[in-house]
């Protein structure tokens, strides 16, 4: 079974946002996610999201529970993107 119907759609270009009529608590943070696609690296993702490849460490730090090696991320993996 390798029909094209089995291929999962790519949602890596989804852009999200939020706002509230309620105040944010002091030090509140908004966390978004990013789904890794083939050819991605943390620095590429950082460049795509922050415009600065050097901020890959922030993504790595936020995902240490699932990313043990910053050079090893796999397509489909969902990463938390801090402060995006």
């Amino acid at each position, binding site marked *: 079974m390798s029909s094209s119907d089995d291929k999962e759609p790519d*949602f890596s270009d989804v*852009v*999200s946002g939020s706002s509230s009529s309620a105040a944010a608590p002091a030090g509140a943070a908004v966390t978004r996610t990013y*789904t890794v696609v083939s050819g991605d690296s943390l620095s590429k993702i950082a460049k795509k999201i922050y415009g600065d490849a050097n901020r890959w460490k922030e993504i790595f730090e936020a995902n240490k529970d699932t990313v043990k090696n910053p050079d090893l991320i796999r397509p489909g993996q969902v990463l938390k993107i801090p402060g995006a």
Partner: protein
Amino acid sequence: MRRHTLSALLTLLAVVAFGACAKKEAPAPEPTPVPVPTPVPTPVAFHVTSVDLGSAIGPDKKITAAASQFAPKDTIYAAVSTDGATPKATMKVRWTFGPKSQLVNEETRDISPTGPAVTEFHITKPSGWPVGGYKVEVSADGTVVATKDFAVKK
């Protein structure tokens, strides 16, 4: 002389009688109103009241164009209405696609409401949403409080 005495006596009796008639008891003082205790508003515990989907919101964050079916180029909004006050509540929405619940996007936002509030979450996909069924799951402080299904059609 006797006549004068009698006249004076009658006058005196008249004055006393008049005084007795005129003297009425002072009206009873108005009863002091018993103060009615002002009901102290019971604090409303923070909770989600509704989740609405649509393709547009107003300045108050509420959905202005409700929908459960969207076009591929639509921005999809989920407006989460809450009531009650809390120093901090963590709102989270999780958007998924298809029967396998493929993750589309996930976002969390901390809020500190003092009463009724609306928090909106939205997603867009510049290349267009794949046609099919989607679901948005809303959590408050780690507990799923609502799920909504919607579809994207051409």
